[in-house]
Each structure stands twice: as C-alpha cells, then as structure tokens.
C-alpha cells in the first residue's frame, strides 16, 4: 500500500493505530480468530468436572460427527462430551457471535455508542414473557420449551411495542428509538416485578434471575439448530448491509443524499435484530456487556467500516463467550457463576486498556 507509506512520512498528527487496516490484515485476523475459536471450542468441551484431554475430545467429536465407533467403556465420556458439553459450548459461541454483531448494528441504527442489543427492551420483554409463562402455567402444551417460547414471544412483543411507539412521521428516528426503548425497558421491568410480587414462588424468582444474568445451562441439541439458523442467518443479513450501516452513521440527511432511505432501512434492521436477539435471549437470558463492548473493541482494531467490523466481531464475540462460559462453570464448580458477572469483570479492564492506547474517540472528540 503505497499510499500508506507516503502517509507515514507526512507530518500529520497520528490517528488511531489500526494494525489490521489492510485487507490482507483483515483476512489474516479472521483466519487467526477462526483457528483460535476451533481450538477453544475443543479445549472448552474437554474441561469441566471431568477433564478430558483435547486430543481425546477431538477423537470423540470426530466419532460423533462421522458416525464412527467408540469403546464400550467410553460411553459415559462420550455422553458428557457429545450430549452435555458440545451443545453448551456451541451455544456459547453462537450467542457470543450474535450479541457482538447485533451490538455493532444497533449502535449504528440508533447512532449511539452506549447502545447494546438489549437497549430496545428485548431482554426485559423476554423476562416478562418467561415469568408470565412460569407463573401462569401458560403454553403448557409446549412442555419444557414453554418458558423459552414465552421469552421469545415476550421479546418480539417488546420490539413491536417499541417500534409502534417510536415510529413517527419521518420513519424511525434514532433518538426516538433509543429513548422509547429505554423507557419501555423500565416499564417491562416493572411488569416483571409485579408478576413476581403477585406470584411469589421460587420458580418465578429463579426464572427472573436466569433471564437477567444469563446462562447456557439450558443448552441442548434440541434448541441448537433454531439458534444456529437464527444467528447465522442474521449474521449474513447484517453483514450484507455493511455499507448501508456506514451510510446510516453519517446521519439521515446525508443518507438520503446517498440514496439510502434511513427510516426504511432502520425498520428492516430492527426486524432482523429483534428476531435474532429474541431467539438468543430465549435460550440464554440477557448476557450483558458483550454486545456493548465487543463492537468498540473490534472497531479499535479494524476501524469503523461496518463490513470489516461485522466480519471480525462475530468471531471475537464467539471466542470471548466460549471462554467466559468455561470460566462460569469451572471457577467455583460445582456452582455456576452468572455469565454477566464474568463478562463485565473480564471485559471492562481489557476494554479500558485498549481504549486508552488506541486514541479511539467513539465518534466524539
């Protein structure tokens, strides 16, 4: 890149350091992250109350995938690996990827560096749905999935309410959207508290705890395909709108002059984001912090262009979440730590350190 070399010689104030600025650097970063992710998944599947060496884990995974055979004495190990840990670790990777990418999209949609996937009331809506199902015994026909379905419906209902309340004449304005989301979230939390207060049983309380703190304890092969389709589909749809997101972050007037109808694009994005977030929250609760901070971390490393950020953020988020979940289930085993506690305790210092080094301004000055 000749231009960059010339740039280095020019007497200008240094901009933020972007070690991965080139196209090659980006591909390299994605390759390294993918490799790390695969290795981490195998290692994480091996770790837990019964420690299994990575080579052994890989052999079992291969046997399960290829329909190969295992020894009769290994059935228990195989069960632990394939039936319990694999779905859980994969769910962690999917949710980490989804939350990071959605954080990127939401921040561009509402033009706010403080936005996260739950800023539009999705998580509190999901909690209301879950608690309502728990306390009223509704949706009983769905069996063990009733609470998740309730949470999903709650999340979608919340998004719809926020959309209806925020949509005005000129389409969805960023500020109206974020203000409505914050206000509605508080309303949903009040409804949730009311439900718990009126039906004070332990089940309702623990349901609330699960949805506000987040856990992958409910992972299973039954739910994984739904989450995989939602998250991976969402990632593709969002990635394809990378340049639209770039244009949206220049402001609605400028977007219009560049041929992007901001209000309509925001509505399309809201639908994608609500569906994917709804599915994730329904199975894992609202895991805070990842969707807020991972976008910034990735922008510090690769710059603000959304196609680049959306290529790296899912991988980084997945990697991060696999390790967070591993910590959650091993650090104070046999008890489990809430995921939100770890994401914040690990993420905040890393984030502050990166931010202070990079000269990153969050779009401010």
């Amino acid at each position, binding site marked *: 890149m000749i231009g960059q070399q010339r740039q280095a010689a020019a007497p200008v104030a240094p901009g933020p350091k972007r070690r991965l600025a080139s196209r090659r650097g980006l591909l390299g970063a994605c390759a390294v992250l993918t490799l790390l992710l695969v290795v981490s998944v195998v290692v994480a599947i091996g770790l837990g109350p019964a420690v299994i060496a990575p080579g052994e884990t890989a052999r079992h995974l291969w046997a399960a995938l290829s329909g190969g055979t295992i020894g009769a004495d290994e059935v228990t190990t195989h069960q632990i690996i394939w039936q319990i840990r694999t779905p859980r670790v994969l769910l962690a990777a999917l949710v980490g990827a989804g939350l990071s990418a959605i954080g990127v999209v939401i921040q561009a949609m509402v033009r706010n560096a403080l936005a996260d996937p739950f800023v539009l009331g999705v998580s509190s809506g999901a909690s209301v749905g879950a608690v309502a199902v728990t306390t009223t015994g509704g949706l009983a026909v769905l069996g063990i999935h009733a609470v998740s379905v309730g949470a999903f419906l709650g999340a979608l209902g919340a998004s719809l309410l926020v959309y209806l309340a925020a949509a005005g004449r000129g389409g969805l304005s960023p500020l109206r959207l974020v203000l409505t989301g914050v206000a509605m979230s508080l309303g949903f939390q009040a409804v949730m508290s009311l439900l718990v207060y009126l039906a004070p049983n332990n089940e309702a309380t623990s349901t609330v705890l699960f949805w506000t703190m987040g856990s992958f304890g409910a992972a299973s092969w039954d739910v994984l395909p739904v989450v995989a389709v939602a998250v991976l589909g969402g990632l593709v749809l969002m990635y394809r709108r990378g340049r639209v997101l770039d244009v949206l972050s220049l402001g609605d007037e400028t977007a*219009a002059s560049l*041929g992007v109808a901001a209000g309509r694009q925001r509505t399309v994005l809201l639908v994608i984001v609500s569906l994917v977030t709804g599915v994730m929250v329904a199975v894992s609760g609202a895991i805070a912090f990842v969707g807020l901070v991972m976008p910034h971390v990735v922008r510090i490393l690769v710059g*603000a262009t959304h196609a680049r950020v959306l290529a790296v953020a899912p991988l980084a988020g997945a990697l991060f979440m696999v390790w967070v979940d591993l910590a959650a289930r091993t650090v104070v085993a046999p008890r489990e730590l809430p995921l939100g506690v770890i994401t914040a305790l690990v993420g905040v210092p890393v984030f502050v350190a990166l931010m202070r080094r990079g000269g990153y301004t969050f779009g401010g000055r």
Partner: protein
Amino acid sequence: MELRIEELSVVTDGRTLVDRLSLTVSEGAIVGLVGPNGSGKSTALRCVYRALRPSAGAVRVGGQDLSRLTPRQSARTVAATTQDGGVDVDFTVEEVVALGRAPHRRGNEPLNARERELCRAAMERLDIAHLAQRTVPGLSGGERQRVLLARALVQEPRVLVLDEPTNHLDIRHQLGLLSFLRGAGLTVLVVLHDLNLAAAVCDRVGVLADGRLVATGTPAEVLTAQLVDEVFGVRAEVVPHPVSGAPQLLYSLDPS
C-alpha cells in the same frame, strides 16, 4: 443537466414551509438561495436530495421527475452536502469520501481501480489528501466541510446541492470553496447566508421569504437596498465591488 423545481410545496402539521416554489438552475449554472432563517431554504433543498417528499409539485433533473426514481438512482445524479455533516463513528477521511460511491455499488462490493482513483483525485482537488488516514471526528470544521464536498464529488453527480457550505469556514476557505464551485462545471443550487458571497459566486439568486420566492434574477437585479430591507429587515447600502463589479452590501447597525 438542468435542475427545475416546479410549483414545489411542503406542508407539515398544517404549516406551509415551502409555498409553490418554482426555480430553474440551467446546466452548469450556480444559483443561490437566500432568505431569513426559517424561510424554507433548507426545506426546499431537502426535497431536491430526497430527504423529504414534497406535498405538491416536482423536482426535475434533465426533465426527469426525481420522485419517479429510486433513492439510489437519484443519488447518482444529485449529490448534496447537508447540515448534519457530523460523523458518529471513527471513519477515516478516505472511508467517508469512498462512501460517495454508495449509490453506484451494490452491497459491500469494493471500489474498482477507477473509483479509487476518483476518490484520490477528489481528495487532491480539495486539498485533503494529506488527511486521508485521519479520523473525521478529529478534523476542524473547515477540513470536515471539504471532506463532505469531496464525498459529493465522488458521487459523480450532474447536480450539486449545498446547504450553507460556508458555515464554520474561515474567510480563506469560504472563498476557496466558492471559487472551486465556479470551476467545477456542475449545476449547483446553494443555500447561502452571506449575501455578499452569494453576489460574488452565483449566476442567479432566488430570495425566499415565508416559503415563497419573492425575487429571482442576477445578483445585481435582486440584491437591492429595498429588497434587503423588505425581506431581512435591515438597512444596507449597495455598492459595486471595485474589481468584479458584483453588488456588495454594506449594512447599517441600526435597524430600519
């Protein structure tokens, strides 16, 4: 291409912001839109760059009614620099300029060699090539205005619409920008606050008051002491510029 605004009206919440405005900018001409605050200048411009749908009337470019084009199609003929030029995220100058190709490219398609050269040349012309890797939020107002203009040029428009492009610019950059417009060969519709700048740069000037076009013509025809008094409510002497002959307004401090 010729830009024609025909009987354009904008009504919101029962208030008429623009009232049957008709104005033509002939091919390659620079037409200034002046008027007091709230007279509807920006609202009229917003209809031209499709940020606002007019309540009645039409905007035609080269005879083509813009409302019959998709937003992308009209963004290939009409480019604009708007007042919300703030950039939220840490885009570099180079990245913002490249976004001028958004109406020409599908999805995330990368720019081809010709387009990259176009961006480089636009940055060179506007003297921001040395800022290419700097982030936009850290730029001065004048530098940012030039970035926005470079982005608009990269759009390869036939018509350029500028909303108070000289805001935040020091006098050197104001003159630099306007003389650049004179040499750009584009059809330009520009909202300006400074009547003297308008007189210096525009072929024709339209004066808006309360959403209505109250005068249009060459700067010398339009910018008279009487009109300035009527529309802006200030007293001014009009004298010819000693070198260019363009009308210059010298204001009195005490209102009329």
